[in-house]
C-alpha cells in the first residue's frame, strides 16, 4: 500500500500576539510546528503501515525552512519526504495550493491520500476537498477512523450530531481530525537518523501543472486587507460581596430590558 500524507508548517497560533501599536502579527519568537490535524493524519498513516504494511510519503509545499517538519515526520516513521518549493508557488490561495499539491501527487503512485481537516493559520479546511477534486478522487472529510476491508476502505466521519460509517472504493482523499489520532512521539534513534535522510526538493518544473494556475496568478481570491480584530471597549468591572454583585447584575439586566 502507498500512502501520501500532506503536511503543512504553521506558526503555533496559540502563541501569536498582536503588536498593539502597529496592529500586525508578531511572528518573532513564535514557534513553527507541524499542523496538528496533519500530525494526526501522519499518525493514521503510520498505524496503517503497521497494520497492513505501507510506504508512507509526506509532502509539503512551502519555503525551504519547511524542511524541519519533514524531518520530524521521518523521526515519527515516514519513509519518504518531498518538499515542493519554488517562487512560482508563492501567494497561493487554497485553489492554487491544492492544484500544486495535486500536480505533484499526480506524478506519484498512491492508494490513499491523507490531509489534515484544517490548518490552524489559514483556517479554511478547503485544501483537502479541492485537491481531491483536482485529482478526480472521492473524498471523506472529518475522518475519525479508517480501516481496510478487502480492497475497500471503511471510514468513520464525524458530523455535528451524528457519526457516519462510509465505504469507499479505490484511492481517495481523507481529511482527518487531530483529536482522533493522538500522535506518537519521535523516536530518539529516528531523530538522530532524520538529519541524514534525503528530503526531495521539487520545483514547479518537476510536477504536472499548468503554470498559469499556480501561486498568486492562479489564485481567484485576494486578501484585500487584513487587520487585528477590533477590541470592544471593556465594560464595567465590579468587585465586592456576592450580595452586592447580584443586585448590580439584576439592575443591569432590567436596564437592558433582558428581564
Amino acid at each position, binding site marked *: 500500500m502507498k500512502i501520501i500524507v500532506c503536511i503543512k508548517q504553521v506558526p503555533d*497560533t*496559540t502563541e*501569536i500576539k498582536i503588536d498593539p501599536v502597529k496592529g500586525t*502579527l508578531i511572528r518573532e519568537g513564535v514557534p513553527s510546528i507541524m499542523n496538528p490535524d496533519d500530525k494526526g493524519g501522519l499518525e493514521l498513516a503510520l498505524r496503517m503501515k503497521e497494520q497492513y504494511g505501507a510506504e508512507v510519503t509526506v509532502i509539503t509545499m512551502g519555503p525551504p525552512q519547511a524542511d524541519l517538519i519533514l524531518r520530524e515526520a521521518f523521526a515519527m516513521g515516514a519513509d519518504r519526504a518531498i518538499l515542493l518549493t519554488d517562487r512560482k508557488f508563492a501567494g497561493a490561495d*487554497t*485553489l492554487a495550493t491544492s492544484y500544486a499539491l495535486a500536480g505533484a501527487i499526480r506524478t506519484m503512485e498512491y492508494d490513499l491520500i491523507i490531509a489534515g481537516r484544517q490548518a*490552524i*493559520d*489559514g*483556517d*479554511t*479546511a*478547503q485544501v483537502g476537498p*479541492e*485537491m481531491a*477534486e483536482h485529482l*478526480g478522487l*472521492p*473524498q*471523506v*472529510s472529518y475522518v475519525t477512523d479508517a480501516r481496510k476491508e478487502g480492497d475497500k476502505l471503511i471510514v468513520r*466521519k*464525524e*458530523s*455535528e*450530531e*451524528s*457519526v*457516519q*460509517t*462510509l*465505504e469507499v*472504493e*479505490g484511492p*481517495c482523499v481523507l481529511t482527518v481530525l487531530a483529536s482522533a489520532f493522538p500522535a506518537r512521539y519521535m523516536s530518539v534513534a529516528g531523530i538522530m537518523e532524520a538529519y541524514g535522510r534525503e528530503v526531495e526538493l521539487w520545483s514547479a518544473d518537476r510536477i504536472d501543472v499548468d503554470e498559469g494556475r499556480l501561486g498568486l496568478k492562479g*489564485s481567484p*481570491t485576494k486578501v*484585500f486587507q*487584513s*487587520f*487585528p*480584530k477590533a477590541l*470592544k471597549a*471593556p*465594560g*464595567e*468591572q*465590579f*468587585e465586592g460581596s*456576592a450580595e452586592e*454583585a*447580584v443586585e*448590580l*447584575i*439584576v439592575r*443591569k*439586566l432590567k436596564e*437592558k430590558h*433582558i*428581564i
Partner: protein
Amino acid sequence: MDSKDYKNVFVFAEQREGKIQPVAFELLGKARDLADASGEKVVAMLLGCGISGQAHRLVEMGADEVIVADCPELENYLTEEYTQVVYKMIVDNRPNIVLYGATTIGRDLAPRLAARLKTGLTADCTKLEIAEKEDGSKEFRMTRPAFGGNLMATIICPNNRPQMSTVRPGVMRKLTPEPGRKGEIRTFVPEFDRAKIKVKLLETERKGCGCKDISEAKVLVSGGRGVHDKAGFDKLQCLADVLGGQVSSSRAMVDSGIMPQACQVGQTGKTVRPDLYVACGISGAIQHLAGMEESGYIVAINKDKFAPIFSVADLGIVGDLHKIVPLLAERLKKEMAE
C-alpha cells in the same frame, strides 16, 4: 469570463433528515441584503428526498426563487451526488454569489464545487458586504478570521464567478417569516454520472445528547473550568431555567467529559449570539471569545480580575461563581414572580 453575465445571490439551503437547517434561513437573510444592494434576486437551492413541500418556507424567509431537486439519491448528504447537482444548477443559472453554511456539510461541498468551477471560496465569513469602489462599480467583500482568530482578513474574488463563501451557523440574522410571500418554485430533475460515485453510506449513528441547539438560545449561561464538575453545572442550569435559557460550555469542560461537544462555544465549537451570555469561570481564551463576543449583553463572573474574559464583558463581576450563581438564581426567581 464576463462577470456581467453572472447575476443573483444563491443560497445552498442545507437540510438534514428532511429538516431545513437554521443556517439556511440565516443565509437567506444575508442574501436578501446583498441582492437588494445590487438589484438582484435571491435564489435558494434545496436538495433532498420528499423535501419539495417545504420550498415555500424558503420563500417566506426571503427567497425570490427556489430550485428543488427531490429524489432518493439526495436523501442524505453525500459529496459526489450533491456536487453534481449543485454544479449543474450553478452552471445553468450563472449566479454572481453563492453562500453555504460552514457546517460539516457546507465545508465538504463548497470547496469541492470551488475546484470543479475553478473559482474562489472564502471560509467562515463573519461579514459580507457589497462595497462601492472609487470608480462607482460594486465589489463583494468577505471578511473572515484567520490565525486562530488573531487576525481578520477581507477577501475579494475579482475575476472569477461565482464568488463563493461559507458562513458559520449563528453568525447572520434571519428575517421574520412573511407568510404568503410570493416566489417561484422550480423543479430540477437531476441526472447522475454514476461512474464517479465511489462512496456509499453504510450507517448513521446519532450522537444523541438530546440537548437543544445552543445557537438558537436567547440566553446562555456558560461554564468553564471554574465550574469544576457536574454539580457546578447544576447550579448554572438553575440560573438558565430562571432566565428561560440554556447551558453551554468552554472546551475545557468538554475535553474533560463533563459537558457534551454539542454545548461547546468557540472556534471549534458553535458560534452563538444570544441576547444575554453569562460566562462563569471561563478565562476567555481567544478561541472561546471567537464564538461568543457578538452576544447582545455579556456578563462575566470570574475570581481573577485580570482574566481576559473581562475585555469583552459588558459587566464584569470579580468573585466566586459558586456563591454568586445560586444567589442570583434565587434573587431572579423572586424578581420574576413579582
